[in-house]
């Protein structure tokens, strides 16, 4: 999802008997629902996987500012502008909490960020799609933040303390994001024919990419089984996707939007929706850098980072000068 495909370095999951005493004690604590804290011992693969997952998540928040930021200056009313500004600001804040959580695992935010800019780190595929109309801002809040919540709510229970606490904080804000997105869609659907068409066009383009956010089916994946054993993943990708579809379809119907899936059908027996197959070729293309906006997104991030180098250097230089002045001040006073 925000971390769509996290590799664990595992080729299979060890049983408790196969573990050495330290690792067994660690796994037993996780099994008992205890939280692991930064200073405590943890197996190296657990740490590495967490760094990957949390940093992918952080990068997604930060890149995720761009598609919505694209419409801030064109927001149609002062109130919508304020709400969108506050939302994009929240996403920057989420990025910050998550980088901080990752830093507790002994990596630096700058290093992680350099990896993103160098194209060595992933971020969610969803942010490589363009925002073409105001309705896309509604669709993102409703569908994309909605999908994010689906994933993040379960991660509040994740085994790593700082990650779990970041998720609890983030989830509160995400539900506000989803509501404001749905509110935009509701207004459009109650508006003129042109506005309604705008809303339909947005769901037509954002529906499938939103389902891709959960990642390909991972029931058979060793990475997923390992992540679940470590409780850094609680539900499978397919379970999350199903929950999302079940929650969202009635919301679409309520405001008169058609979900663009001819195979979508209520399954009375399962008490759940059956739905069509995601175009995984498209997903892998986007992941490989060939989505509609991958290059623009990375170029924007790189430009902001490079153009801002003088700023960051200046603040450091000033802090050094101030520290030096402070260090020499007592001598001067004597």
């Amino acid at each position, binding site marked *: 999802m925000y971390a769509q495909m996290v590799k664990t370095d595992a080729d299979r999951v060890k049983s408790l008997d196969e573990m050495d005493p330290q690792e067994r004690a660690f796994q037993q604590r996780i099994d008992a629902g205890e939280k692991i804290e930064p200073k405590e011992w943890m197996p190296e693969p657990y740490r590495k996987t967490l760094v990957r997952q949390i940093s992918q998540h952080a990068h997604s928040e930060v890149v995720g500012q761009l598609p919505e930021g694209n419409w801030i200056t064109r927001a149609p009313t002062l109130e919508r502008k304020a709400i969108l500004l506050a939302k994009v600001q929240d996403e920057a804040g989420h990025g910050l909490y998550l980088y901080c959580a990752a830093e507790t695992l002994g990596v630096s935010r700058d290093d992680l960020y350099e990896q993103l800019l160098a194209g060595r780190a992933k971020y969610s595929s969803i942010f490589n799609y363009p925002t073409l109309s105001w309705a896309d801002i509604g669709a993102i809040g409703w569908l994309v933040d909605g999908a994010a919540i689906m994933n993040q709510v379960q991660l509040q229970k994740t085994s790593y303390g700082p990650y779990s606490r970041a998720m609890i904080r983030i989830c509160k804000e995400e539900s506000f994001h989803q509501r404001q997105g749905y509110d935009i869609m509701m207004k459009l659907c109650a508006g003129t024919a042109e506005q309604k068409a705008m809303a339909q066009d947005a769901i037509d383009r954002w529906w499938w990419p939103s389902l891709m956010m959960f990642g390909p089916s991972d029931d058979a994946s060793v990475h997923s089984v390992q992540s679940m054993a470590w409780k850094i993943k609680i539900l499978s990708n397919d379970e999350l996707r199903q929950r999302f579809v079940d929650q969202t379809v009635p919301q679409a119907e309520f405001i008169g939007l058609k979900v663009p899936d001819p195979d979508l059908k209520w399954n009375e027996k399962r008490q759940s929706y059956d739905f069509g197959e995601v175009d995984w070729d498209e997903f892998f293309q986007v992941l490989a850098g060939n989505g509609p906006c991958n290059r623009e997104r990375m170029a924007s991030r790189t430009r902001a980072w490079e153009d*801002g180098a003088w*700023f960051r*250097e200046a603040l450091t230089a000033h802090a050094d000068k101030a520290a030096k002045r402070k260090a020499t001040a007592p001598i001067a006073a004597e």
Partner: protein
Amino acid sequence: MTAITVKSGDPLLEFLLRMGDNSLVLGHRLSEWCGHTPVLEEDIAIANVSLDLVGQTQLWLGFAGEVEGKGHSADNLAYLRDAGGFRNFLLVEQPNGSYGQTLMRQFLFDAWHYYMLRRLEHSSDRRIAEIAEKAVKEVTYHLERSVDLVIRLGDGTQESHALMQEALELLWPYTGQMFDADGFDEVAVKAGIMPDPAEIRPDWDAQVTRTLRAATLEIPQEAFSHKVAARSIHTEHLGYILADMQFLQRAYPGATW
């Protein structure tokens, strides 16, 4: 809806539009940075300042609409006037340029804004005094932040020093306008609605001198100041701001969002 023209004539209305338009245009400029600043903390901080200014716009223009008495909302006034109907300072519509230029523009404006609002807390108009009281809390923080950053960047590296000095020289000629009074101001000053703009100058000068000295920057000696015949005259930049900002309201007249 077709474009709205607000007839000049009432000094109170004119004053409210001037305050509202400054917040609106500068808030808009700052929002252009969202997601593109040099560091995540700045994305958050600049969005805060922008949000405050958008909120203040709603208060000033909301009141302006009431005073005008034609049923125009703050949104109507923001989204349906053409450039000639805007009364903001030339300073706030200047392009963002580098992040340093944006921060310098902000500092020069914040210093004016702060001392203006402090006086407006004592306006004879109770509503204005209330808006000022609320706004000054936010703007106190804006000014503190601007002062701090201008000092740190001016007295940072050689590169940052040069960049800030250049920004200062570029923007300086737009600062004089903030202290010029016209006929509307004179009536409003007499009625106790607002302070004499010239009265703000000594405080502004002192703040600017103090800050720039600490920043090791030099105050431009050039006395030249851009003068315009009326507040309706703008630089070329404002038209593009409005083309961006007003697009949806113009393309779908009368729709609600």
